[in-house]
């Protein structure tokens, strides 16, 4: 069961990462990039590294995506 969850998370991360680089809109890419971060949070937690999982959840999926979105808002209609 746990192996299936790990495998599904891996496959989902690869799919989300690939679909984030083929998006035409940058906002969609950023949202999908957050999905990659969430997948890695799951994997870190399963592999018994809750400290790293907490760091990844806060920095990778939280702060960095918000900063990406703010930068996108600064760019405006050019992007």
């Amino acid at each position, binding site marked *: 069961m746990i192996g299936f969850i790990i495998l599904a998370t891996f496959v989902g991360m690869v799919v989300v990462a690939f679909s984030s680089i083929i998006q035409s809109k940058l906002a969609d890419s950023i949202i999908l990039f957050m999905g990659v971060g969430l997948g890695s949070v799951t994997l870190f937690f399963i592999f018994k590294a809750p400290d790293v999982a*907490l*760091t990844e959840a806060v920095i990778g999926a939280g*702060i960095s995506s*918000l*900063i990406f979105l*703010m930068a996108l808002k*600064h760019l405006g209609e050019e992007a």
Partner: protein
Amino acid sequence: MSLKRELPTSTISGFALSAVFILTILNILIQNMPLFIDTAGDKLLQINTQDGVANAVTTVVVYFRGFDTLGEIAVLFIASLGIGLMLHKNSTCTLKAGSNFMLRSASKILFPIIMLYGIYVMVYGHLSPGGGFQGGVIIASGVLLLLISYQEFEVPHSLIVLLETFAGVSYVLIALIGLLTLDIFLGNFLPHNISEMGMLLSGGIIPIIYIIVGIKVGSEMSIIAQNLIKRDENV
């Protein structure tokens, strides 16, 4: 609007001079440091219990590798300094488009909870997963929520200067007290019994140092977020 900005020569030369100064001091410190490479890894975790800290990762990050943590918060400080030098504007700029009603109402409820969770993660860093870096970034994300919710909100600069100076100075002071009393840089000079393992007040200086790291990371990330968001909004 062009992305190029004029930087005075004095700023660049001052930045380069301070970088050379810091590198020289670090070089001297590293040359005088004894190296214990053969005790890395699992052996460190085996002797973890002698410090009375329940979370082994915290012992490694703050105690066995405390010098690295000092370097890490120095790196974060330099990053925040660079962003401030490049992007800071004195004129009070506000966001062009105001935030909507839902964000403003939700931030009133969410902000205390985020701050409370950040402080919990910070203070219980030696007992449960988490610690100074994570708690500091959670607190900074609460400040970021206020920054995007209220146009007029600004992080008070005097408070940030006070907190950051206090945190950096007290980290080095605690490390130097350890050097004076136990002949070890970052020596654990406070009582740390194994029988108290798992209590809030245990582990000697380790929780104190992690709280200091949390204060420093939180203030630096808040000021980085403010400099990134409130930049050139009136153009």
